[in-house]
Each structure stands twice: as C-alpha cells, then as structure tokens.
C-alpha cells in the first residue's frame, strides 16, 4: 500500500500489458471489439483505483495529528 516510484513502475507494466491486449485484440478483430475490451479494463482499473485510494488514505494518516495532539 505504498506510493513510490517502484509502485508506479508496477502500474507501467500493468498498463503496458493491458494496452498490448487492446492493440492485439483490435488488430485481430475489429476496432469496436478492442474499444469494448479497453472499456472493460478502464472500468476494472477505476474500481480498483477507488478502493486502493480509500484504503491508502485511511492508512497514511497519523491520527490524531497536529501540535494540539502531542504523543
């Protein structure tokens, strides 16, 4: 659940593979099929992203914070 360069690089690989699958499917069939597959991947990625950001935000805060809450 980290946000650093290594985590983003992992996403480059994931998006690269997803993009390759869209390109491959488009070239093998029709652009519409590739576009629909791309849409499925975008929706799946969005759902995962929303869940990840919710958990990340929950875990990345120190509660309570600020100078009025020492220790």
């Amino acid at each position, binding site marked *: 659940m980290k946000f650093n360069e290594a985590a*983003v690089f992992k996403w480059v690989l994931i998006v690269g593979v997803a993009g390759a699958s869209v390109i491959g499917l488009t070239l093998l069939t029709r652009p519409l099929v*590739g576009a629909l597959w791309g849409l499925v991947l975008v929706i799946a990625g969005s759902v995962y992203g929303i869940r990840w950001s919710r958990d990340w935000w929950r875990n990345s805060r120190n509660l309570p914070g600020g100078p009025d809450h020492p220790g």
Partner: protein
Amino acid sequence: MESASVPLPQGGAGHAAEAHHHGPPEANQSSRIDRQTLGILLFIISEVMLFGAFFASYFFLRVVVNPADWPPKPFELPVAVAGMNTAILVSSSFTIHYALESIRKGNKQGMKLGLVLTWLLGLTFLFIQINEYVHLGFSARTESFGTIFYSLTGLHGAHVFVGLMLLTFATIRAFRGHFDKEAEDHLGVEVPGIYWHFVDIMWIVVFATVYIL
C-alpha cells in the same frame, strides 16, 4: 528533501537543536507520506482529469459525431513509427526505474547512467514526434480529426517536455553528488521518476486510442 545545516558554535551545546536547523521551524506533518510525494500524487490526479477531458472530446467526435472516415481520406497515421516511439518511451520507464533501484542500493554510477539514458530516450521520443508532425500532411485545422489529434498528442508531448526538464535538473544534481541511498536523500530523482512513469502510462493510452482503435 535534502536539508541544509550550519556548523555548531563552540560551547553552544544547549542550543544544539537550533544550531542544526536553518530557516523557519519545520511544519507539523500529520501524514505518513512525505509532502513531496503527496504533492506529485495530487498533481498526477489533476493531470489524469485534464487528459480525461481531452479523451472525452476525442470519443465524442469519434462516436457521437461519427464522421464517415476516421482519419479523413487521403490521410493516414504512421502507426509503425508511433509504435516504435511507444517502445522507446516504455524503455525509458525501465531506465528511470534502473536509476532509482541503483541509488536505493547506493550505486551512484548506475543512477547517473539510468538518468542519462532516460533523458536521451525521452529526447529521441520528442524528436521523432516532431518529425512525425512535419511529415503528416495535415494540420490542426484539418477537420475535427486534425484538431483532436494534435491536441491529444501535443498535450502529451508538452508533458514529455516538462518531464525532460525535470530529468535535466535531476541529472545535473546527480552529477553534482546531491543524492544518496536513504529515501529522503533521493526524492529529487524519485519525484521526476513518478512523473515520468505517468507520462509513459498516458502515452500507452494515447497510442492505443488515437493510432490503433
């Protein structure tokens, strides 16, 4: 990031903490993520929204307006050249990752090599894209297709240019010996690295959408 410090005054042990700190007092940090990384994350989220607006325009023109020919005849997009350019940009993500992995292990030479290679690959990508623009045969005024093509690829090209600027500063700092093994000592490479990966991810989406679909 890297903090400056002043030498301790003689016999000033009682004020050691103040003597080490230069400038205004450190701001309270209520997040476990450092502020530079949080800043680039928020910036990237805003950039995703910007690209999203351009993609919305693209799909509106492509699907809702639905012109007879896309791209309009007799124009053709150089898919092979753009594909090669995609391979170059994806490779640059591997080299910047190599640079970061190197400095995490304390290998400064590896970091410098990774940064220089990434910079060269980014410059090659930009050069090929400008060359592509010169030989396309249509302009941004050539129907809505030309406008959205140049808008999307130009927006991405502008991001590559900004990324190259960040990499230039990071490379200069690397050769001046500014970065070290600890995470807080190489944020100046980490943050441009995150931005560069984002630029790479966006290109994969732009390439698949504009050139292939």
